[in-house]
C-alpha cells in the first residue's frame, strides 16, 4: 500500500525491544473519552461518554456506538476517525463471511479479523497504528461476549472492562461491583454508575451513549429518553 518510498515499516523495535509507536498509540487511547463494557449473564452492555466540543454541535448527528452486525456492537476510546475505518472494514468482513458460509459470523471470528487489521497497521509499510481501543459486544451461540482490542492487535475476553481517561478508577469500581450472576438491567445501572464516577458536569441522556444486546440477539443503542429513565432509577 502507498508510495514505494514508504515501503518500510514506521513501527520498528527500539533497542530495548519495545514497539514505541504502539505505546504512543496507547497513550492516545488513554487520553480519549472513557468507555466501558459489562458482560451480564443474559446480555452485554457497552457505554461511553459523549462529550462534544461545543453546544453548537448537533448531538443527533453523532453516534459513537456502532453496529458491526445485527448482533455485534462496538464502542471505542481514542481517535474517532480511526474507529470509523475499523468499523467499515469489520462490517465488510462480516458480510463476506456470511456470503461464504450463509451463517452469521461468530463474535470471536469478527474480533479476530478486526484485530488482524489493527496488527497489520503496526507492521505494514507507510502506515501508523490505529489510535483506538475497541470494546466489541456480541451475543451468539456461545452466549454473551465482550472483547477488548488494543492498537497492537491483541485482544482478550473480559467480564467487564474500561478504557480511556478514567480507566483505573473505572476498573476498580467495576471490580468491586461485578458479580457473575448479574442481569442485563443491573449491568446497565452499574455501567451508568461507573461513568458517573469520573464524569465532569451533569450526566444526562444527551452526553452518554449506551448500547445493549440481550438474548434476543439484537444489538441496539438506547435513545436519550431511555437513558434518562435509567438515570432516574439510579438516583
Amino acid at each position, binding site marked *: 500500500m502507498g508510495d514505494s*518510498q514508504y515501503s518500510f515499516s514506521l513501527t*520498528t523495535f*527500539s533497542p530495548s525491544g519495545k514497539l514505541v*509507536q504502539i505505546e*504512543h498509540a496507547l497513550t*492516545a487511547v488513554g487520553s480519549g473519552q472513557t468507555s466501558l463494557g459489562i458482560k451480564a449473564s443474559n446480555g452485554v452492555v457497552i457505554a461511553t461518554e459523549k462529550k462534544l466540543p461545543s453546544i453548537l454541535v448537533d448531538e443527533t448527528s453523532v453516534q459513537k456506538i456502532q453496529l458491526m452486525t445485527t448482533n455485534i456492537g462496538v464502542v471505542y476510546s481514542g481517535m474517532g476517525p*480511526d474507529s*470509523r475505518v475499523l468499523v467499515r472494514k469489520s462490517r465488510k468482513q462480516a458480510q463476506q463471511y456470511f456470503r461464504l458460509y450463509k451463517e452469521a459470523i461468530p463474535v470471536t471470528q469478527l474480533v479476530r479479523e478486526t484485530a488482524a487489521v489493527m496488527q497489520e497497521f503496526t507492521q505494514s509499510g507507510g502506515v*501508523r497504528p490505529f489510535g483506538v481501543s475497541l470494546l466489541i459486544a456480541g451475543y451468539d451461540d456461545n452466549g454473551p461476549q465482550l472483547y477488548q482490542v488494543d492498537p497492537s492487535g491483541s485482544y482478550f475476553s473480559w467480564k467487564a472492562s474500561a478504557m480511556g481517561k478514567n480507566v483505573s478508577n473505572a476498573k476498580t469500581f467495576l471490580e468491586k461491583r461485578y458479580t457473575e450472576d448479574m442481569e442485563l438491567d443491573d449491568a446497565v445501572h452499574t455501567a451508568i454508575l461507573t461513568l458517573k464516577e469520573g464524569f465532569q458536569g451533569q450526566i444526562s441522556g444527551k452526553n452518554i451513549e449506551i448500547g445493549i444486546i440481550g438474548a434476543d440477539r439484537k444489538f441496539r443503542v438506547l435513545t436519550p429518553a431511555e437513558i434518562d429513565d435509567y438515570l432516574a432509577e439510579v438516583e
Partner: protein
Amino acid sequence: MSRGTGAGYDRHITIFSPEGRLYQVEYAFKAVKASGITSIGVRGKDSVCVVTQKKVPDKLLDQTSVTHLFPITKYLGLLATGMTADARSLVQQARNEAAEFRFKWGYEMPVDVLAKWYADKSQIYTQHAYMRPLGVVAMVLGIDEEKGPQLFKCDPAGHFFGHKATSAGLKEQEAINFLEKKMKNDPAFSYEETTAISALQSVLQEDFKATEIEVGVVRKDDPAFRVLSTEEIDEHLTAISERD
C-alpha cells in the same frame, strides 16, 4: 529517509508523538488559520447559510476567480476554509464523488454522506505516511429530504459533526464563543443569514462592503445551493446596519 521510532520524524509524517498526538494533523489545523480568513456557518429552521471573508490581495486580480464557496451539485454546497489549492483539489474530487453517487444509486447524494466521505478521506491522510493531510476545513451544506437543513463541518483530523452553527479559520474560537452565547441565551434560537453576517462582522470588528464577503445559502423552499449576488449581500448589510 525516515526510520520511524519517532526520533524527530513525528513532526514530518503522521506518526504518533510520545504524548500520543499527531503533529502533522495539528500543523494542518494551523495552516487553516494561516490563510487569514474566518468563516461562519449557521443552520436555521428552514435554511442553512455560510459566510466567509473574501480577501483579494492584489487589485490586478480578477475578483470573480477568488472564491472559497463551491457548488458540489445543484443541491450541495461546500465552503473550504484554508489553503486554496487543497480546497480546489478537494472540490474536484467531491464533485466527482457526488456525480458518481447520483449515477450509481439514482438519487442525490445527501449532505451527511458527502461529509462522511470527506472525513474518511482525511482520516486516510492522517494514517498513511505518503500523503499529508489537507489544510482545509470544509463546511458542507444542503437540505436533506428526511432531516431538513443540514450543516456539517469536516476537519483535517477526519472528525465530522453536524452543527447548529459553527466557525472555521483565523477567528474561529471568538466566533464560536459568540454563537454559543446566542444559543445559551435562547436554546430555540434559529440562526438565519443575517445572524451569520452580523456574527462575522462583530467577531472581526469591522463593517463589510458587499464585495468583501461571500455568502452561500440553501433554503427548504428553494433547495438549490446559491451564492448570493453583491446586490443581495448589500441588502442584508443595509438591513443589519439599519437595525443597529
